C-alpha cells in the first residue's frame, strides 16, 4: 500500500486496480467510472478505523461476544465421518493459548495432479502416509519359549495393501530392535531372538514389537482421501489424523506447497512465523464460521499479528502476549501481580503511563478516543514566565 494513503483519503492501489478493471469490463463511461470510484472511495473511507479507536478492546469484544454464545458442542465431523476434529470454543482457546500439541492434530494434504484425480490414486498415497504398525501386517506373533524366540508370521496380502514387501518390513525392523538378533526365515517368517533369556522380558519385547512402526510417516494414525471442490473440477485431497509436516514433505506425490496442518507450533517450526500467522487466521476464521458466527477478519488479523510480532509464537496468556507489555502496572493487573512488581522493582522499571490499563488504575484520562488529542505548542521564541513562589507556599 502506498505510504500513508489513509491520511490522504485515497484508495489503495490494489483496490484501485480492481475498480478500474471492473469499470472496464462493465464498459462504464468516463463520468460513470469517476462516480463509481468516488463511491468506492467513500465506502472505503467509512470502513477505515478512526485515529484513536480502541481497536484492541473492540477486537476482544468482537471475538469474545460470539465466544459466550458458543456451546461446548466441541466435536464435529469434518470431511469424513471417521475423523473428528476439535472445534468450537475449546479449539479457539487452544489456538489462542498456542498449545504445543493440538487435541486433535490434523493435516490437509494436497496431491500433485498425477494423483488427485481418482480415489484409487489418492488412496495409494494415503496408505503410504499412514503409519503402519507391525501388528497390522502380521498374521500372528508367536513366542517360542523353548528357543527363547519371537516369531513373526507376515500377512503377505495385508503387506501388499500397504505396499510393503517382506524384505522391506525386515529392513525397516532391523534399526528399531537394536541389541537383539534378527533373521529372516523364508519369505513370511521373521525370527527375533533377544540376547537375554527371560520370559517376562521376552513377553514385553513381543508387545513392544507389535507397536513398532515399519512404514508410513510417524504420527499420522489415519489418512483418508476426501473430495474437495475447487471450482468446477473435483479434486482429491487427503485428510489425516495426526500431523507431521516434515515427514509429508518427503513424499514425492504430495503437493507440499498447498499442504496444511492445524498445529501452530509445527507450522512455525517447519515453515516459519509468517506461515504460523496465516494458520492462526485460517483456523480462527474457519472455527468461527463453522459455528455460524463470522467475525470481521480485521479483529482476527490483529490478534494473529500480536501473537507473531516477536518472531516467536506467543499465546494470549500471562506467559505470552501479556508478558510482552511494556507497562509494569498493565502486566501486574493481569494474573500473578506480585512477581511482576518485585521483578520490576529489582531492575527499577519506570511505567510511563502510556497505555489504557495503567491510566484506569491511576484514574487519569486514557489515551484513547477523546483522551488521545494532546496540545502541541511550538515553543520557539515564546517567553515563559513562571510566577514567583515563596518558599514552601503552594497553590492548590
Amino acid at each position, binding site marked *: 500500500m502506498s505510504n500513508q494513503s489513509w491520511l490522504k483519503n485515497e484508495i489503495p492501489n490494489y483496490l484501485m486496480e480492481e475498480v478500474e478493471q471492473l469499470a472496464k469490463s462493465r464498459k462504464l463511461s468516463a463520468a460513470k467510472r469517476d462516480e463509481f470510484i468516488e463511491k468506492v472511495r467513500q465506502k472505503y473511507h467509512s470502513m477505515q478505523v478512526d485515529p*484513536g*479507536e*480502541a481497536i484492541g*478492546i*473492540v477486537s*476482544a*469484544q468482537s471475538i469474545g461476544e460470539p465466544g459466550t454464545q458458543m456451546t461446548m458442542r466441541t466435536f464435529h465431523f469434518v470431511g469424513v465421518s471417521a475423523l473428528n476434529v476439535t472445534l468450537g470454543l475449546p479449539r479457539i482457546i487452544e489456538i489462542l493459548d498456542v498449545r504445543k500439541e493440538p487435541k486433535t492434530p490434523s493435516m490437509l494434504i494436497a496431491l500433485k495432479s498425477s494423483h488427485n484425480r481418482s480415489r484409487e490414486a489418492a488412496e495409494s498415497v494415503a496408505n503410504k502416509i499412514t503409519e503402519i504398525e507391525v501388528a497390522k501386517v502380521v498374521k500372528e506373533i508367536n513366542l517360542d519359549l523353548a528357543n527363547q524366540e519371537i516369531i513373526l508370521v507376515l500377512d503377505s496380502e495385508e503387506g501388499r495393501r500397504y505396499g510393503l514387501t517382506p524384505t522391506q518390513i525386515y529392513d525397516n525392523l532391523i534399526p528399531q530392535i537394536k541389541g537383539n538378533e534378527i533373521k529372516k526365515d523364508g519369505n513370511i517368517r521373521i525370527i527375533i531372538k533377544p540376547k537375554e533369556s527371560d520370559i517376562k522380558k521376552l513377553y514385553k519385547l513381543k508387545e513392544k514389537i507389535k507397536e513398532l512402526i515399519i512404514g508410513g510417516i510417524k504420527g499420522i494414525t489415519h489418512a483418508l482421501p476426501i473430495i474437495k471442490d475447487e471450482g468446477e473440477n473435483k479434486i482429491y485431497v487427503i485428510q489425516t489424523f495426526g500431523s507431521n509436516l516434515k515427514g509429508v514433505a518427503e513424499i514425492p506425490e504430495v503437493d507440499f506447497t498447498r499442504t496444511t496442518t492445524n498445529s501452530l507450533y509445527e507450522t512455525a517450526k517447519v515453515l516459519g512465523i509468517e506461515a504460523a500467522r496465516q494458520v492462526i487466521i485460517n483456523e480462527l476464521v474457519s472455527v468461527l464460521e463453522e459455528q455460524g458466527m463470522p467475525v470481521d477478519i480485521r479483529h482476527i488479523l490483529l490478534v494473529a499479528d500480536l501473537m507473531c510480532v516477536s518472531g516467536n509464537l506467543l499465546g494470549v496468556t500471562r506467559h505470552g502476549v501479556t508478558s510482552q507489555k511494556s507497562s509494569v502496572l498493565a502486566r501486574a493487573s493481569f494474573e500473578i501481580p*506480585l512477581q511482576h*512488581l*518485585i521483578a520490576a*522493582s529489582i531492575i527499577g522499571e*519506570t511505567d510511563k503511563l502510556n497505555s*489504557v490499563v495503567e491510566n*484506569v*488504575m*491511576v*484514574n*487519569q*484520562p*486514557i*489515551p*484513547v*478516543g*477523546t*483522551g*488521545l488529542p*494532546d*496540545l502541541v*505548542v511550538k515553543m520557539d521564541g515564546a517567553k515563559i514566565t513562571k510566577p514567583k*513562589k515563596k*518558599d*514552601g*507556599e*503552594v497553590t*492548590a
Partner: protein
Amino acid sequence: MSDVFFNGSLVGKVDDAQKFVDSVKQTRREGKLSRHFNIHYDQNQDTIFVALDRNRVTRPLVIVKNGISMLTQDKLDALRNRNITWNKLVDSGVVEYLDAMEEEDAFVALNENELTDKHTHIEINPVTIFGICTSIVPYANFNQSSRLNRGQKTQKQAMGCYTLNYLNRMDTAIDLLHYPQTPIVRSFSQSMIGEERSAGQNVVIAIINYDGYNMSDALVLNKASVERGLGRSTHFRPYVTEKLRYPGGQVDEIKIPDKDIQGFTLERDYRLLNEDGIIYPEAIISGGDVVIGKTSPPRFLGKLEAFSTAANIRKDTSVRTRYGEDGIISKVVITENEDGSSLIKVDVRDSRCPEIGDKFSSRHGQKGIVGAIVPPQDLPFTASGIVPDVVFSPNGLPKRMTVSQLIEALGGKVGALGGRTIEGTAFQSEDSKSLREQLLELGFRDDGTETMYDGRTGRQYTAKIFVGNMYYLRLKHQVADKIQARARGPVTLLTRQPTEGKAKEGGLRLGEMEKDCFVAHGASLLMKERFDSDRAVIWICGKCGDSAVHDAYRNKAYCLCGEKVNIHPIEMSYAFKLFLDELKSLHLKPKLGLGDTY
C-alpha cells in the same frame, strides 16, 4: 458367595444372593418382618444391602405378580367399605414400602394398561411419581418435564396464608396474601395439603398483547382488580434484641440513649421511642428509624475508665429498621429468653399492593413481572363485558409449550361458569374434550376464544381472543424489597470506594467489562468521571517522588527529604494511593515522576 451388609456393616455371607433376597422379601410380605425392612442386591458388587435404620424415605407401591396387580377389585371394594384397613394390605403382601435402595430392583408400572410380566410393582396412583409441589400443577402430564420443574419452583415462592395464627407469631420476613382462594382447577393433592393454605387467586386471563406492556414475560394487571385486593399482601419482619449481661456486672440498657453517647445519630431517629426505650405499636416508621433504644458497655475497659462516672463511655447499640424498609409497628413483645435475660421483639408490618415490577406466576412455570397496571376501561373486554384481571402475552406459549396452562384456563372457565371445581390431577384429569363440550353448552365458543374489543378505541379485534380463568400466584420477589439507587453515599473505609449491596446503600458497580465498553467507545473523559468515586488529591514531592506532607493550616507543604518548593497536589484514585502504600509495605519503593501535561 455374596457379602451381606446390614445398616452399613458387614454381617455375613450368603450362597445364593437372589434366592436370599427373594425369600426375605417374601417373609416381609407375609408380615413377619418390619415393613421398613428393605433389601437390595447389587449385582455389580455382588453384595446384598439390608437396611432397617432411620431416616430413609420409603414409599408404598402395589405389588405385582406375573403381571397381575395384587390389589384386586374385591380388595379395593373391601377397602372402600372399610372392611379391611391399610395396615392389613401391607401385612398381607398387597402393598409394600420401598426405600430408594430397593427401588433400584423394582420395575414399576405407571398404570394397569402398561403392566407386563416383567413388572414388579404398580403405582397406587400415577401422580405419586411427582413431589408435593409438582403434583399440585394441574394437567401436569401435558407438559414438558422441564416446565414442571419450573412450575413447582414458583409454587414454593408463592405468597399464601401459611398459618392461621400468624398474628401470634414472629417469623422472619414473611409475606401474607390478603385474600387467598382455592383454585378452580385443582389437583387432588391440593386437598391433601389443605385448602385453607392456598397460595393464590383465581383470575380472568386474556391471552393477547397489550402494546409493549406485556412483552418478554411481563404481564398487565387490571387496576380495578388490584384496587379490589388482587394480589395484595402484607410483609412482616421482626426486629429482635436481647438485654445481655457481661462479665464484670455490666449490662445492656434498654432506654432512649443519651445524646452524648458514642454512636448516637440524629435525635429524629429516636423520636418514636416511648420512655422505656421501645417503640409503640402502630407507629409509622421508615428505614433507619430506631425501634428499640439500647446502650451497651464498651467492649474493652481501660484502667481508669471503669471507675470514672463522668465520661459516658457506653455505646449506642439501638436496633434500627433496615435501609429502605418502611412500615407500621405491628406488635411489641417483651419477654425472657432461656438464659433469663430480657428479650424484646418488634414486628413491623408493611402492606404491599402489587406494583410495576412485582412478580407473578401461573402454576406452569409461566412467571412474569408486572409491566403495567391499567385502568379497566383501557383493557380489552369481551362481548359479554368481562374485563380480564391479567393480560398475558401469547408469545410466552409457542416456545415453552405449556399446554397445561391453556387447559387450565379452559377448565377454569368451565368451572367458574358451572360453579364447580375441575379435576386437574395429572394423568386422571377431566378430559379437555369434555371441557370443550361443556363450554359449548354454556354458550361459549368451544376453544375458549371470545370476541374482544379494545377498551381504548372500542374497536373489535379481528382475532378471537383466548379468555379463561386461571389460578395465579403472587411470588415473594417484590420491587419494594429490591429497588436501589444512589448518587452519593457511604464508602468503605479502606479503599474509599462506594459500599456494595442494597443493605449498605451501596453503589452499582461499573465493572471491568463495562469499563471495556467505555474504552471501546473512546469515551475517555466520561470514564474518568465515572471512576471518580474515590478521587483523592495527594501531595507528591517532585524531587524524591514520594508522598509529601501538606500542612493545610499554614497552607505549606514540605517533604521528608527536605524539599519545600517542588511539591504538587496530584489527583489520582484513592485505590492507587493505597496500592502504592501496599507496595511500600512490601519493601518496594514506588516513586512518582512528575511532569507537565502540556
